[in-house]
């Protein structure tokens, strides 16, 4: 008995009565199977079923995903190269398996993990070679085509360093140059060691970076492309130093990421870098906020709430703390994001929260709601006494005012069906 190919596509007409295997965690939720009665019991349909057995179940498994990727990577390592082809076939498989991935199908989970492992392996190998080969260390790095750059490796060209040396030499301050370069080298080494040791948090951060959509480089570049302020998004520490556009000055501050938090320009999309404390992929997602696909927004908000990576030196995680402690509403929309995250991350999608997405100036300034919202409310209604005056007013009004939509459910008394 083979795996039912129609079931995999979500259109098996026989449903439970199907003679072929319907793997658990597959497409349950999809088109209801048609009445099995008429179709059954005859020669013709049996042969239909048998026909599908010809297709091997292995196409469903991880090898379909991993195989092409694997080819791409292997060939890339030697003198051949197969990335574009593997990229496209990879995406085709992905759309086919989308739902099972969500339902945590065993097979798919296994396939996915293999790809992760492969990625990690290639990263380790590349890092080893990088360390031992004597090649230029101030370089960006990505384990594979299609993948974004691994964070923590900013690009500096030899010419940039050389110019810096010449400038320092002209000012009789070569020691400054030497210190800056040593600092950069130390950071590189630190990042390298961190990745090589690959403990749980590094691994998780790395994998989420790398998995953050194939198209990630595009939005990041596109954004930088349209910003006439030339505000660079990718390569975070670089943007901090290159904003002093006139002279490429080394800021040997240890927290290169924190250094750029001073660059908070006007609001809306361009402030994204200021809080993209994690990695550039998340920055680009936040930029495309109103228009980004739901998954990316979700990852964005999750990153915010889960900034355990210790990078939160920019004002941003300060905001989330403020929001939770019911201090006056943080003066930027991202405070709103935090409050929303605190309330119910699962509801956070541009579609669901339609009123908030897209209006970047949106403030859930109901500071009190932020304050009292530290736990996700499970109640269906909120007793009137638990509502603040503002929230009550909102519920009583004919319509919600944008910016003051309460996060708690309305009191049952106000509901009139």
């Amino acid at each position, binding site marked *: 008995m083979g795996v039912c190919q129609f079931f995999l596509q979500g259109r098996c007409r026989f449903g439970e009565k199907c003679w072929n295997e319907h793997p658990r965690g597959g497409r349950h939720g999809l088109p209801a199977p048609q009445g099995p009665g008429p179709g059954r019991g005859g020669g013709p349909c049996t042969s239909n079923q048998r026909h599908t057995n010809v297709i091997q179940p292995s196409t469903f498994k991880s090898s379909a995903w991993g195989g092409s990727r694997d080819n791409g990577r292997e060939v890339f390592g030697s003198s051949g190269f197969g990335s574009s082809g593997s990229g496209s076939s990879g995406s085709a498989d992905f759309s086919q398996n989308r739902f099972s991935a969500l339902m945590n199908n065993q097979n798919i989970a296994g396939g996915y993990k293999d790809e992760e492992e492969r990625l990690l392996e290639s990263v380790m190998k590349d890092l080893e070679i990088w360390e031992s080969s004597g090649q230029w260390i101030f370089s960006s790095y990505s384990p594979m085509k299609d993948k974004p750059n691994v964070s923590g490796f900013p690009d500096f060209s030899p*010419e940039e360093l050389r110019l810096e040396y010449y400038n320092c030499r002209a000012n009789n301050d070569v020691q400054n140059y030497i210190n800056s370069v040593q600092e950069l080298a130390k950071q590189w080494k630190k990042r390298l060691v961190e990745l090589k040791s690959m403990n749980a948090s590094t691994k998780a951060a790395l994998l989420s970076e790398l998995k953050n959509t194939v198209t990630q480089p595009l939005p990041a570049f596109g954004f930088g492309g349209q910003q006439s302020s030339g505000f660079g998004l990718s390569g975070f520490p670089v943007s901090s130093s290159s904003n002093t556009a*006139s002279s490429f000055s080394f800021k040997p501050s240890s927290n290169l990421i924190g250094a750029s938090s001073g660059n908070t320009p006007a609001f809306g999309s361009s402030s994204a870098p200021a809080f993209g404390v994690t990695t550039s992929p998340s920055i680009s997602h936040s930029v495309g906020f109103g228009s980004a696909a739901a998954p990316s927004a979700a990852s964005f908000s999750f990153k915010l709430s889960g900034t355990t990576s210790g990078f939160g030196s920019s004002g941003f995680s300060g905001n989330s703390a403020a929001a939770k402690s019911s201090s006056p509403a943080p003066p930027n929309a991202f405070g709103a994001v935090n409050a929303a995250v605190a309330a119910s991350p699962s509801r956070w999608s541009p579609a669901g929260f339609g009123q908030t997405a897209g209006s970047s100036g949106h403030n859930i300034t109901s500071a009190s709601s932020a304050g009292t919202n530290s736990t996700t409310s499970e109640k269906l209604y909120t007793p009137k006494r638990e509502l603040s005056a503002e929230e009550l007013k909102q519920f009583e009004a004919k319509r919600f005012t944008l910016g003051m939509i309460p996060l708690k459910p309305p009191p049952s008394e106000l509901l009139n069906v």
Partner: protein
Amino acid sequence: MSLFGSTSGFGTGGTSMFGSTTADNHNPMKDIEVTSPPDDSISCLAFSPPTLPGNFLIAGSWANDVRCWEVQDNGQTIPKAQQMHTGPVLDTCWSDDGSKVFTASCDKTAKMWDLNSNQAIQIAQHEAPVKTIHWIKAPNYSCVMTGSWDKTLKFWDTRSPTPMMTLQLPERCYCADVVHPMAAVATAERGLIVYQLENQPSEFRRIESPLKHQHRCVAIFKDKVNKPTGFALGSIEGRVAIHYINPPNPAKDNFTFKCHRSNGTNTSAPQDIYAVNGIAFHPVHGTLATVGSDGRFSFWDKDARTKLKTSEQLDQPISACCFNHNGNIFAYASSYDWSKGHEFYNPQKKNYIFLRNAAEELKPRNKK
């Protein structure tokens, strides 16, 4: 002449076929030395276009100067003229009629040097050092394209102080090449953009980098009917990617190859990996030359996917290279490229430009 990679270290003698036992390995290939080379590292080389009779070579250097030599057919080089910037010169190019030379410098400006009058005027201004400069000659317009570390690509009519057009780059411009109507720009953080230049320059496509590390040099190649069809991209990691813009079969047609490594293709032992500092395509044969931090140059046939030749190792990195307009002369510059930091910088060390006869060695390998 023995060719293939002696494993001698940097600076020690190669195969002593010339009888000399001194450690002077500055010219192991016994190529022609250009007289009066610049006093600091050479960052760029450019030969005059076919519209100019004879061959003139321009070199920009970290000594803030641009020098011009006449190269005669017997190999003699005669220094002709020189211009200065207030900062190191990073790139240089000729106008299509051979009357002007454009130079880009760390002083954030670009200059146009009229060779007839030996006057140079500023034609471009950026917020950061100008890394690349190219002359664009389109049927309906001509301009100078400058790429800078200020993340912009600007197009200049040489008569006006404001640019005709400014395009934003995702990151600092590291290298660029122009073969009308295509321009390829590689930026920091592995950015790669192709522009089309017909009517007016516009972005054609952003390409995901085929390389894993920092981009260092790029060169566009043409197909058999002389139309630009792709580019070669070199990185700091001893690898060059050949990328076609619209290949019939991307998975098979695009590929990368390793070069400028100490162990060749033996992957078991740890190898030393050197940056690819320059790539140049032979104007007639379509084969390419790469020069690296290891002090070698190599010739390759990208269609047959083979290496044609690798030079002996020079005692300094090779920082720049170019072919003359008919492909008879291959020029390469031997000077320090900062690949090992300031510790290995010796201001006293002499810099060289060598000229080599390239007519025979770059003939393509016949595909079997």
